[in-house]
């Protein structure tokens, strides 16, 4: 769906710009300059305000990202459960550093704060799907499952 269609669908919802941004990010991976201008027009606010919203929330990005976004939790419970080792393993598997995207545009690796899956730590998420309590050695098969099924997105 085009950005303008998404904006039109939410523009009657008071405060709906955040839901619209979610949907744009779900479809296009990020909020482009055009999308922000489009949203500002649709919601009747200034481009500065729309950009302010786009850059306030950590789940929104104004830069392109890979098809799948891997986020490693670094909040205290995950921190002491070994999130640093998890970061190292993911960086090695993907061949990129935190904040980078693989050259084939498949994966972006980021840090996050608590995602509320602390029943087993450490936790990382792929496209919002939580993977709690895995050891670094278990991440290979998880990443490969996203390579096999290229369309895999948060299935729930």
């Amino acid at each position, binding site marked *: 769906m085009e950005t303008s269609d998404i904006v039109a669908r939410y523009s009657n919802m008071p405060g709906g710009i955040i839901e619209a941004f979610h949907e744009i990010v779900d479809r296009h991976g990020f909020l482009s300059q055009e999308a922000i201008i489009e949203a500002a027009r649709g919601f009747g606010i200034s481009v500065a305000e729309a950009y302010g919203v786009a850059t306030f929330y950590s789940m929104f990005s104004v830069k392109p990202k890979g098809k799948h976004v891997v986020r490693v939790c670094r909040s205290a419970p995950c921190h002491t459960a070994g999130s640093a080792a998890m970061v190292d393993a993911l960086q090695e598997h993907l061949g990129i550093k935190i904040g980078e995207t693989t050259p084939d545009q498949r994966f972006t690796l980021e840090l996050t704060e*608590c995602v509320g899956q602390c029943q087993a730590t450490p936790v990382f998420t792929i496209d919002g799907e939580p993977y709690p309590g895995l050891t670094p050695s278990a991440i290979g098969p998880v990443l490969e499952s996203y390579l096999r099924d290229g369309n895999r997105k948060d299935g729930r």
Partner: protein
Amino acid sequence: MARETRIVLKNLGKIDPMKIEDAVAQGGYQALLKARDMSPADLIQEIKDSNLRGRGGAGFNCGQKWAFAAAAPGNERYVVCNADEGEPGTYKDRIIMENDPHRLIEGMAICAHAINARQGYIYLRGEYSFLRRVLTHAIDQAREAGYLDGFDITVRRGAGAYICGEETALIESLEGKRGEPRYKPPYPPTQGLWQRPTIVNNVETLANLPSIVDKGASWFASLGAPSYPGTKIFTLTGDIKNPGFYEVPTNTTIRDIVYGFGGGIPGDLALQAVQIGGTSGAFIPPDLLDTPADFDSMQYAGLSLGSGAVYVLDETRDILEVVTRIESFFEHESCGKCTPCREGTPRLVGLLEKIAQGRGSRFDLDLARKLGHNMTITSLCGLGMAAPVPMLTAMQHFPAVFTQQVSAKTSEEGTPW
């Protein structure tokens, strides 16, 4: 030892969250029908008498809050469920919503009757987007079954901002803006969402309401600690044998939570510290373990119940390193609106890193403490006020952790950063 007592998690494992008939078979929505037979004033009095206090961390009397909204002028009022559960180590609200969404919806509808609201919102943290389906399905079922009756609920998502757990920041976000807290007063019960009277209650608070209406205020008031009655869900993380969630009476001691329900420390190591209330909570030394975990007992001991997260550190952990990580959380999550928090959080991280690396002086330690105290007094909202608490309480209860890291340099030698 106290036993697990399930009120809000009463239906856990007994119902399919996607089936309203399962919830109804367990007595779901009966309390709502009972509440609607009461006048709003009587209902508010009943909740006041139960002494139910907010489970989100502030501990305000729920019925009192409702009374403010009911008395505020205006035709349009809102019920907002704060499901922006972002406090690290906390996932109790997720457990409630995942397993028994109807209990939350019923609680919101009870509140709507009390304050005469026609529209409700569940502000769901973006990281819990997968729960949107369960919640909207349950709302649809409740609407079709006729339980909502002139009241409706919309699920709206956050997008990754810890600050939106603060109720006025949450309201700003619902309005489609950056989630920056408002100056208070006015408080949301008189001027909240779109400047109208608004009740913002935590998921766990709302989920208590059906049982209170069903069994009566005096039943609830007699459970747990008298000044903060009922139960509290604790989520255990860190160096603990049995990590997980436990709903227990509020007069349960920290010792029972850690050693009873949690089973103690793996490897039979000694306990070094517990942090209760999430990452914004105080670091608690072993000699305070017999403190009951209710709001007032914790506050009296200089601690905080907060969200009910319980984070356990064994004797091998480096508290200074953990505190530094925690302060960098606040640096990341500070919204930037007020100066003490925006500027204070990175300075705290800088000072702690300097101290941890052995480059700090006694001057740096004093400066960090002074800055921390300053932030607790001058910050605009609870985030900035709580941000220095882990550091300050760690300094208070584990002074050697800090003093052994710094030289005896004077202020002249110990230049900042």
